[in-house]
């Protein structure tokens, strides 16, 4: 029987798979025959290519990517810390759980508008708005993980009076790896979606800004080209960063 591979996507299969998806898209678009409402890759990819080669898309892509990266770092950091704390300290959790539920369900529009109004129409407000939107979600995911941790390993740490940092690094975080991985993947996608709204509501550049302009002009091909530019980056991040990281974190699992 073949060895089961470690999780993570080996490149050739992934490439073929993406090509397959493009083919499928092309076939559906050709079958629908409505290039205004359902443009195929033949209409969208040249737009994407042109935007990248002529460089017109790059500043927007850079701006959006910058916001996503910073907001992601902040949201993952604070959200993970908060989630761990709540998962490990049930007494605190009992007090803060309603706050978390409320924070989780405040609409993005409200946070974004309030951030812009109070902090001003600037980069700080934009990033704060995204981070505030995302933190409760990360916290909720990590809290579940922290609640489900193995008590025997906690006993081991207590027995040896392991320092807090060592506990975090060797005992808690490895147990939370699946939750962290899920939070990272779902999180980066969510953040990028919120960044789109943030850019729509108060920035003058970025992919979200462009997508909304294209939408005003009902340029669906343009909307898709801009969206795909970011999706392509996310695919690259997944293959070059997340998948190898996950592979590393999962090395110990039974083959």
């Amino acid at each position: 029987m073949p060895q089961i591979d470690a999780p993570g996507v080996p490149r050739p299969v992934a490439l073929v798979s993406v090509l397959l998806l493009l083919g499928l898209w092309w076939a559906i678009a050709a079958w629908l025959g409505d290039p205004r409402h359902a443009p195929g890759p033949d209409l969208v990819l040249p737009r994407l290519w042109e935007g990248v080669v002529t460089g017109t898309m790059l500043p927007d892509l850079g701006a959006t990517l910058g916001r996503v990266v910073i907001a992601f770092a902040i949201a993952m950091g604070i959200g993970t810390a908060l989630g761990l704390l709540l998962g490990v300290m049930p007494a605190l959790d009992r007090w803060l759980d309603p706050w978390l539920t409320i924070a989780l369900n405040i609409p993005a529009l409200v946070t974004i508008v309030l951030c812009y109004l109070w902090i001003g129409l600037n980069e700080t407000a934009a990033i704060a708005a995204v981070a505030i939107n995302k933190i409760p979600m990360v916290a909720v995911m990590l809290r579940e993980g922290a609640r489900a941790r193995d008590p025997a390993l906690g006993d081991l740490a207590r027995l040896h009076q392991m320092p807090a940092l060592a506990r975090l690094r060797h005992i808690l975080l490895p147990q939370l790896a699946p939750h962290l991985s899920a939070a990272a993947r779902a999180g980066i996608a969510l953040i990028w979606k919120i960044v789109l709204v943030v850019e729509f509501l108060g920035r003058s550049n970025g992919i979200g800004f462009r997508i909304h302009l294209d939408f005003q002009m009902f340029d669906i091909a343009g909307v898709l080209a801009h969206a795909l530019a970011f999706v392509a980056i996310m695919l690259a991040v997944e293959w070059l960063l997340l998948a190898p990281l996950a592979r590393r974190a999962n090395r110990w699992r039974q083959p």
Partner: protein
Amino acid sequence: MISLDLRSKAHGRTQVLGPMRIEVAPGEVLGISGPSGIGKSTLLRIVAGLDTRFDGRLDAPAERAMVFQSPTLLPWRSVLDNITIPTQCRPEAARAMLARVGLAGHEAAWPGQLSLGQARRVALARAFVGTPRMLLMDEPFSSLDADRISDLLTLTQDLIAQHRPAVILASHSAAELDALATRRAHLSGRPAHLDYLETRLRAGS
């Protein structure tokens, strides 16, 4: 010096342990036997300071080591790291102790790649590598063959003689208890009470 004055210990609403006193001096080994499910592990966890929800008083050194009944290794750390990380010992010390329990060459393996007996020996090595003032052993030699056990018994005796920790050993095996215990006690009844059996004096205790 371990000193426990237990009035009662309950799991939920069922009382598991009744009143009992335990005093173990440095270099002494208290061997505790008793049927499965009587409360040996519960008692050891109380002494280890891992279970504080009991009624009574515990006075025990902070430098402690314990062989849990299950290996309790970190599956995501190598065998070597499983010893150095919790005990903060030097890698050479860990390597030497691994060799001593018959696991030379397995330093880089993941715990998931070990047999149960091998995993238990890693846990033994982890408990033995430091110089604790209190050593708690909960059926430390199960899943091992007779040759290996007699070898490890010798190792344990040497370590006790050298560092003189206060030791409590819970075991079903008369051979192990005979070899190590300076004093013996038996748990029985529900709630369990502790009966001290004949006391033999050993060199150095």
